[in-house]
Each structure stands twice: as structure tokens, then as C-alpha cells.
């Protein structure tokens, strides 16, 4: 096999793998005064119609609870977010 053929094969494999992999996802952290939320593997929310799960945890001082939700991108580019914090079994949010 010539070096040129080998290079072509490697590039083909890489491009095929790239097509097979899911869209880039990253961790996103947000804060609302004393509240903090960390979401794991959030997908890109740039294109209208995009949908990403929001799975992670909520923190307020010593109170830490799992959270689940969804973000959707509307036609105008704005993003709607819905989150549930599963803290009832952990004593609830301290007042």
C-alpha cells in the first residue's frame, strides 16, 4: 500500500467516525443568587427546533439534589427551559 493510499484510508475512517459521533455536548453551569445548577452534556441550542436534556444537580449551600429538565429552541432563537429539582426526600430546600 502506498503512503498516499494509506493517508486516504485514514482520512476516510476519521470522516466516517465524525459522521457517526453525536453532536458536541458540554457541561453548563448557571447561578441564580444562592442557587447553582450544573447540567451534564448539554447539546447545542443554537438552531431553532433543537432540544437538549438538562440532567444534573442543584446546589444551595449544603443542599444538593438531582435535577432533570429540558431546553428547547423556539423559532425566534429564544430558549425555553423547564427544570424539576428532586429534593423532597432530602428534606427540601432550606429556608
Amino acid at each position, binding site marked *: 500500500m502506498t503512503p498516499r493510499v494509506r493517508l486516504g484510508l485514514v482520512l476516510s475512517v476519521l470522516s466516517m467516525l465524525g459522521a*457517526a459521533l453525536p453532536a458536541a455536548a458540554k457541561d453548563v453551569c448557571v447561578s441564580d443568587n444562592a442557587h447553582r445548577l450544573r447540567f451534564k452534556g448539554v447539546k447545542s441550542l443554537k438552531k431553532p427546533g433543537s*432540544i437538549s436534556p438538562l*440532567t444534573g444537580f442543584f446546589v444551595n449551600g449544603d443542599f444538593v439534589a438531582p435535577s*432533570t429538565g429540558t431546553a428547547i429552541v*423556539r423559532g425566534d432563537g429564544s430558549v*425555553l427551559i423547564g427544570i424539576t429539582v428532586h429534593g423532597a426526600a432530602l428534606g427540601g430546600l432550606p429556608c
Partner: protein
Amino acid sequence: MSHRIALCLCLSLLTLLGVGAPAAAKDVCVEDGTTSFRFKGVRSLKKPGSISPLNGFFTNGSVHVPVTGTAFTRSDGSVAIGVYVHAGGTTPASMDVDFVYDLVGDASLSATGVYRYLDGQLGGYESIWAPIACKMLATP
């Protein structure tokens, strides 16, 4: 290039693609009267024990809100579905409360069950989901 090398390369490619490709997942859309849902990347629910997240949106007229849920396949092959609709804070005011769906159906998310408003009211309302083509649902 010999046939042997070509065969090895083909097998390597197939193996790599098999590893790199995500488990089969597809968008699923259902409707219940004037209400519709689109769920993104739903995993196969054919085998007992299967579990899939249900992330997407709820649409009813001009209301489009995020939803979060889970579906899992029971040992008898039926699929239990739970979905939370984040409608609080939306307009019209009649929809300004979150609500949840609890249904049982099949792997296509054809299902029957109830939905309940999370405003302290007791009881629920019947819900019947029927799969529809996702192209029928516009971007929110």
C-alpha cells in the same frame, strides 16, 4: 492492495463505526386531541427492561413548552410512560400550571392514561396518545 488487506480494512471500518455510532434512537411524535408532543432521540423500547429519556416539547395551539420524562418497558412488553410538562409561567393563564402524564402503551408510544394538573386538584383527565409523523409538527 491484496484482497486480504482490503477485507481487513473493511472489517476495521465496520467495527469502528459500530463502536462510534450511538444506540438506535429516533424522534417520536404523538398527539392527544389538540395536544401534541415531540420527543427527541427516543431509544428502542422493544425489549423488556429498556429505558429511554423523553425530552422534547408539548404543543397546544400557541403554547409550546419543554417536557421531560421517562419510558420503560415492563416484563410483559408494555411500556410505562411518565412525562412532566413545564407549563408554569406560560400564557394563556388557563395553562399557567405544570402538569404530568402517566400512561401505559407500546414501544411506539401509542398509549392511554391520565394527566393531572399540579395545582392541588385531585383526580385526572383521560389521555390517549396516538403516534403521528413528526413532519406534522412545526418548530415551536
